[in-house]
């Protein structure tokens, strides 16, 4: 028994093995896990749920490939919810890296089974139900420009179609006609949206952010400057749960939970070992 313990203590490869098993098995065998919903994510969901069909939401993509594991599922869940509600979806990328990821999410949701029409194609039509502005230069300046006048500044969508000609843009001038902005972020962009979008033009803003950024957003959420907050992969899973469409995030979070519990177990186990040794040392050395 002691030999096994000392092996575990000295050879970290044992821990590597356990971690590997803890990741691979749940990925292979999907184990449904309850995902309790936090207030922050529920606030984002309720805000979206409160919109009327035909309202416009602007999704802003401000993340990149390295934050994709957490943010991409958030984007897909929010987009799915918006299309289900019959909202008009406008998308813009604040960073060049984000543009292909945003387009990919849009394509995945639009072409998913849920929105398939009888003829086999998607019943969502680009230009009528949604529009993609693509990457636009300017970061925080861009937000201020959009607040002044969207069609005048953007002019054409990613396909080169003039915005004034698109049914989806009818009646949309500036942030007064945007019911909600959701920013998907891996950097400073929530600050820009809160200060410039919410503060200056009064548009409602919700954000989806990576796990490490969550804590910085709470002051905004508490003060009401943010209408909702989806935090990291866990937030994405919560949102999937709320719209009753479990997908990537729900699966990953189930796996994540196993690893988290494993790490807690490892820490407890390490401390048990440590105190046993301490006691043994104290007994062996009565001085």
């Amino acid at each position, binding site marked *: 028994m002691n030999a096994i313990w000392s092996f575990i203590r000295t050879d*970290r490869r044992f821990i590597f093995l356990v971690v590997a098993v803890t990741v691979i098995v749940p990925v292979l065998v999907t184990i449904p896990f309850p995902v309790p919903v936090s207030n922050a994510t529920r606030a984002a969901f309720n805000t979206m749920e409160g919109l009327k069909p035909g309202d416009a939401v602007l999704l802003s993509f401000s993340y990149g490939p390295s934050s994709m594991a957490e943010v991409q599922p958030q984007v897909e869940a929010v987009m799915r919810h918006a299309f289900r509600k019959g909202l008009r979806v406008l998308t813009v990328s604040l960073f060049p890296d984000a543009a292909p990821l945003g387009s990919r999410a849009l394509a995945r949701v639009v072409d998913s089974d849920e929105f398939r029409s009888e003829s086999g194609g998607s019943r969502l039509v680009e230009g009528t139900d949604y529009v993609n502005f693509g990457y636009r230069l300017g970061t925080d300046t861009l937000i201020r420009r959009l607040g002044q006048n969207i069609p*005048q500044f953007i002019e054409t969508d990613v396909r080169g179609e003039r915005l004034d000609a698109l049914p989806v843009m009818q009646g949309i001038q500036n942030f007064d006609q945007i019911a909600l902005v959701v920013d998907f972020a891996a950097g400073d962009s929530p600050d820009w949206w809160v200060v410039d979008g919410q503060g200056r033009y009064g548009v409602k803003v919700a954000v989806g952010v990576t796990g*490490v950024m969550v804590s910085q957003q709470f002051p905004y959420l508490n003060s009401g400057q943010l209408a909702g907050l989806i935090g990291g992969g866990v937030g994405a899973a919560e949102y999937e749960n709320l719209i009753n469409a479990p997908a990537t995030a729900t699966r990953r979070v189930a796996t994540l939970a196993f690893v988290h519990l494993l790490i807690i177990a490892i820490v407890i186990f390490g401390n048990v070992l440590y105190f046993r040794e301490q006691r043994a040392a104290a007994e062996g050395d009565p001085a």
Partner: protein
Amino acid sequence: MRERAGRPSVHRTLGAVVAAITACLLVLPAAYAQVAATDVQASDIPNDDGSRGVQVTWQFPTTGAEDLKGFVVLRRPADGGELKPASGAKPLAPKERSFADKGAAGASVKGTSLREPSVPYVYVVRALYPAPPPEPVAEPSPEVADGEAVAPIGPPAAAPAEPGATPPAAADAPQPEPPPDIQVDSSESAPAKATGNWYHTGRTPVLLATILFAGLLLTLIQLAKAGKTPKIRRIPGLEAVDEAIGRATEMGRPILYVPGIGGVGSIATMSAMNIYGHVAKKAGELGTAVRVPCRDAIVMQVMRTVGEQAYTDIGRPDAYRSEDVFFVTDSQFAYAAAVDGIMVREKPSAIFLQGVFYAESLILAETGNSVGAIQIAGTDRDSQVPFFLAACDYTLIGEELFAASAYLSHDIPLLSTIRAQDIGKAALMIALIVGVVLQFAHIDAIAWFFDTDLAR
């Protein structure tokens, strides 16, 4: 009078407002109050390179013109020319009272940050009202002091620019379908020009701090030279440096010095170079090799200079081997993989991880730990400190890394700069406490001083 046109007096402004309100009241029964904007002012937007253009502001009564559709800002070159809209095709919202005319900025010179000289412009603010129904036409009141109604004919440029000219009645104009808006123009502003400014007033607080801090630093150095030697507290991680080098020598294995992934511009990398100077000297005296894998070519260059000098200082320039300082690759994780490889193959007995580290911090520190090396880490990235704490024997946290160079060198001018830092910190603490107390009394002087929005 010329001057007054440029700088409308308070009286005139007030008079205009009163007159405008009176006018509104007079025509109120007709429900088509056609008030003009008054007190149009234009000025260069300060604190920029001229690219933000000219700020146009105007006054407008808050009541009495509820059917106002919006404003159009027009401009013409001060030396003559036609009035052209500056605020775009769509009118500005009725609530607006200002407009930043970016178009007044000089064009940027291609491929540079320079700008063509800009032209001075004169501005007019045009208020738009819906056209009246064909039958009863409300005559624009002649009392409108500072502007006039303009018949909705033709392009905006056709609007008369001369204040006081008798406005043609709206009914006289031909009525196209749908009826165009009634346009009421203000009088002209004084000319204004977008220029690049030579000082950013919003950055004065930062300038103040910079000067004060630099002054403090230089004063303390002078004092120290006059014989006031500053003391400095123990920094455990640095005390261990010599121990680690000694141990490596005993075991006859090399030392690995990892200067992080930062470039030469980052302060932490600079500190890493300084610590390396010390390590190279000690190791050189004991005849132990120090291997330095680099991710940045300029950093490699500087590290070589530092190493060469260290060996010269101890009188063994021939013992220095420049190939011990080598470039790996600039890719973050390829660098980490290669350094991991060096660790497991060369089994250094002491590893220094000093400088800028991101995610690779734990990859390096865990591998170093697994080969049983004594590890001394230091970084100013607070998010990576926990991983060094977990896997290294000693960790220099944030500022401790910057203090290292002074600490190791015992150089008096350097030590006195550490003292300057401490005084700076004490000043910040006091400012913090005073600021909070004042804030309770709703005096935000200190918060304002530190407000970075002004410095944008």
